[in-house]
């Protein structure tokens, strides 16, 4: 294997597409498995779906990749997207309805009473939460801080790293006093009243705790909409998002 697999795979795409297809079978299976975990296909159908995707790729899509791919991303990422599109096409043809899963599954997770498929589904869900959190952009630090408060997750010094050098000693002292140990019993409103002092000082604003609470709730509602999917695959609510975030922050 060479040092740079991406360049090697680009060469295979143009010179030996059959070898590339063989190498990328694991990607096809991985993406199909993702669709199965969301209930778009049955577990028993896996090999049939893989075969159908391969047929679509070999008959038309591989040629289109050769023609259109401009090399601005890793080929395997782009290929994954093409496989994802193929799976979507197949789901539309079959007109299957996905399985709705939600709070019950997540709450059972804490009891460790899940079968391997359910465990994979939760792992999958946590990765989707990770993607959402990573994609917050410039508001990432504030969003994650507030989502930890939403999930009633204890904070520690690592959560204050971005703020320590900014001369916010008084506000940080209040954060430490309020959120560095169990604050499960602290009403949301009281939690936001402490947090908003930090952000107001930081952003030179005078927002109310309600304003911050509304902002956080809007983020959570957007997460619900994105994670539930269209057509809906999950039935997330603010409570299940809270559970998911608790799990994510604990595991990360």
């Amino acid at each position, binding site marked *: 294997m060479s*040092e*740079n697999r991406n360049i090697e795979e680009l060469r295979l795409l143009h010179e030996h597409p059959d070898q590339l297809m063989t190498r990328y079978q694991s990607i096809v299976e991985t993406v199909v498995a993702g669709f199965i975990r969301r209930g778009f296909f049955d577990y028993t159908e896996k090999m049939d779906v893989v075969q159908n995707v391969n047929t679509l790729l070999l008959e038309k899509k591989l040629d289109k990749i050769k023609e259109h*791919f401009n090399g*601005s*991303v890793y080929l395997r990422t782009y290929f994954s997207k*093409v496989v994802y599109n193929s799976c979507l096409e197949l789901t539309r043809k079959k007109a299957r309805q996905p399985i709705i899963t939600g709070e019950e599954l997540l709450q059972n997770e804490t009891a460790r009473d899940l079968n391997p498929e359910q465990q994979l589904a939760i792992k999958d869900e946590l990765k989707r939460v990770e*993607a959402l959190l990573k994609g917050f952009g410039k508001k990432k630090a504030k969003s994650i801080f507030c989502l930890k408060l939403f999930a009633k997750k204890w904070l520690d010094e690592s959560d204050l790293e971005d703020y320590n050098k900014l001369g916010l000693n008084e506000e940080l002292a209040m954060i430490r006093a309020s959120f560095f140990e169990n604050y499960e019993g602290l009403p949301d409103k009281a939690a936001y009243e402490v947090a908003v002092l930090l952000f107001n000082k930081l952003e030179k604003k005078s927002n109310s705790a309600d304003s911050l609470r*509304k902002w956080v709730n809007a983020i959570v509602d957007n997460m619900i909409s*994105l994670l539930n999917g269209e057509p809906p695959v999950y039935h997330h609510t603010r409570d299940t998002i809270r559970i998911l975030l608790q799990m994510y922050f604990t595991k990360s």
Partner: protein
Amino acid sequence: MKAIKDQNHLSDEQIALYLDALRADKTDDLPLAILSHIDDCQPCHRQAIDLYSMLNDVDYTNIGAHPTLDKKEAKVFSMPRLLMRIAAAVALLVVSFYFFSRNTDVNDRGDIVRDVTPTEKTNPVNTPNSSEEKTLQKEDLIIPEKEEVIVKDAPVKLEAPKQKNPQPKSIIPIEPQNTRELYAANFESSVEWSDMMNETVRSTSFQVLQPKSPTAFKPNTKIAFQWKGSNMNRYLVVMNNKGDEIHKAKVIANSFELDAKLLPGLYYWKLDSDDDLLHVGSFTVE
């Protein structure tokens, strides 16, 4: 790369680029068009997060430098060596030129000032024989003997701040701040609270019956608040249009009557529990 795909969605390559950036924690390096589209377009965002979770099992070892994200980084990294030197030289030239031209202007100006007599300063009337250029110079240098700002209908006389070298342009008439304006200020809506009004409440069974926004009350009348929903501890807070709390009450029933002498103006009210904001509304007293 084409900015946005024809059907107003990201192209496959753009979604792949977003995914690569997520994986590498380099979303800050992405083009703004992709980031804003992801923020605004749920189908594209959904596809991206779906694929991100699926790619968790895809092997990226020895994949090599990223064709876009690492190239950008390499460019930035190499900048100090060559570009920074060029940029520094250009900046130095610009700064030197600026100071050189600024000093020249000041000297010229100083010469003119020395030529102008006090009589010329206090007499703004142009002499018929003076040239246009001369007249302009004089006008620029007219300095009033005394600055005075007259504020009509205001209880306190405002004085203009004293300046060492007052210029004609500094005499900006101050808008009269009369009672009518102060009164009107009480009706200006608050962006923050207006934004929070009518947001979806957490419980669908909760419904406000009165006052519906916008309702106008006469001064010194009792204001009745009423809503439908399960009985629980709630707090009703009335605020003025600046968000200052005017009245706060803990309520258990589904109604409350506010008997307070409210001045004319716009008011916001909110109903919340310990865990959630249930409703934000407004009313006016006229």
